[in-house]
């Protein structure tokens, strides 16, 4: 697919999306187009609707207003093409003491495509193995998930998403609770997958991700606050979106500092882009 073709037809199209839970408005009037091959970072404070946005793209939540199209169709109506979307949910959604090995978790990525009642074939096992190779965890296949480190576990869940050979990968705060070095190598891996042709949408609280890896950033807080290239949108505006408007920014030297009211503690992130 040529660059212009990709530009012409976004693989995710959200038009005037609103999502309400009972009476609570989670997303309001969101417009977003994601071209094939891009790396989008979604940022916003807690409860701003980031997870809701991903679930809307997945089709597990239906918007109360507006249209969603993924690969040109409503995501709940994708049929066989559903496997083209890989999803890494926000951590803590699974029981870490569950008696299951990493290899089996990765193979689960294929279960939907295999279908009810049928058993995994050698093709499925091969695909799971390749996914593990891509994220570098083949040696962990027999480890129970409870014994993996946070970073290793995230790779297992990415491998599970990759086992279906998706074209679009949605990740929800994949490096929460992971140390900075591990987080860095995790994003290096994502970047590698992105360079291999995968479209990546990642929810993150990490300013370094926005600056160093993403080619587009979307700040949401119910509504779309800012949307554009990281170099072009105002850093202050992005930070204000992430940490709240009352955070004050002290711009001295190559590292932007910020002062946050009350007792919140925050990691300041290195901004290599200056």
């Amino acid at each position, binding site marked *: 697919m040529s660059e212009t073709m990709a530009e012409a037809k976004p693989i995710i199209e959200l038009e005037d999306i609103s999502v309400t839970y009972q009476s609570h408005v989670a997303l309001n009037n969101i417009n977003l187009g994601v071209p094939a091959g891009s790396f989008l970072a979604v940022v916003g404070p807690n409860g701003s609707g980031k997870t809701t946005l991903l679930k809307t793209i997945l089709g597990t939540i239906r918007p109360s207003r507006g249209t969603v199209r993924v690969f040109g169709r409503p995501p709940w109506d994708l049929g066989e093409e559903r*496997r083209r979307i890989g999803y890494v949910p926000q951590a803590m959604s*699974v029981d870490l003491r569950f008696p299951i090995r990493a290899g089996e978790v990765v193979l689960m990525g294929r279960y939907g495509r295999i279908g009810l009642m049928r058993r995994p074939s050698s093709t499925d096992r091969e695909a799971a193995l390749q996914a593990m190779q891509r994220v570098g965890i083949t040696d962990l296949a027999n480890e129970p998930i*409870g014994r993996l480190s946070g970073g290793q576990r995230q790779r297992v869940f990415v491998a599970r998403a990759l086992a279906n050979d998706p074209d679009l990968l949605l990740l929800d705060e994949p490096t929460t609770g992971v140390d900075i070095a591990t987080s860095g190598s995790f994003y290096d891996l994502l970047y590698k997958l992105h360079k291999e042709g995968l479209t990546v949408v990642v929810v993150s609280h990490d300013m370094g991700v926005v600056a160093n890896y993403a080619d587009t950033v979307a700040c949401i807080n119910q509504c779309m606050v800012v949307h554009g290239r990281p170099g072009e949108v105002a850093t202050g505006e992005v930070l204000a979106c992430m940490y709240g408007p009352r955070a004050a920014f002290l711009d001295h030297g190559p590292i932007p500092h910020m002062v946050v009211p009350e007792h919140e503690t925050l990691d300041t992130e290195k901004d290599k882009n200056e």
Partner: protein
Amino acid sequence: MSDILQYGFMQRALIAGAVIGVICAVVGVYVVLRGMAFIGAGIAHASFGGVALGVLLGINPVVAALVFCLIIAWGIGILARKGEVREDISIGVFFAATMALGILVIGLTKGYQVDLFGYLFGSILAVTPQDLWISLILGAVVLSVVGLFFKDLLFITFDSEMAEVAGLPAERLHFVLLGLISLTVVLSMKVVGIILVSALIITPAAAAYQLTEDFRKMMALAVLIGVLAATLGLLLSYWLNTASGATIVLLATFFFLASVALSPRRLRWFFKAR
């Protein structure tokens, strides 16, 4: 030993006990890992209302209990699905309501001399050839369903949300599981008793959970513990002239405590702590 096996009722009780040990353990693995212990107890108590209604209407109490349990289990599931009533709340309500209904109905059938006490607490003498057949048939149904949907039930148990995203009918599989719990309760009722059956579902699986970090091994160990507890418990109850259900459950509890003491996880933690 050989002398007691000459009795037809003892042979039937032991075969039924072994079947119950297997089925309770297999279903118990899902119940334990999905955190459905409370709903297991709720369905078990609902069966009492079914038994009493069966006696009143002149229907086979086991069949009546099965129909009643399925209605209650799926009813709770439907209420919870619409988000109208939280699952634990509707279980709490029906738990007591079905017991109350049973007690009321017994009052109406006072003239009847049916051993309802046997249904509540289990009895070795109670297993008729017809009961044994019912247990064998229901047991075969449970095992076939688990065998057919093995990977799918594993998926929804481990990560229901991802199963749904992958296009598997997670909700319908949850209803399958509720149906399996109902079948298990009903086929165990005569030997273990309504009051204690949920313990026989939970305890062997909980014991196996302490001993392994592999799903299939957990199921195999649970079956081993369940069969040992059920058959040895029956023999003990014969020799000691104690209630069969109580003896089986206390033996299972002993296995559980032993496995907690011997748990490799705990031992690892213990030696690490030194």
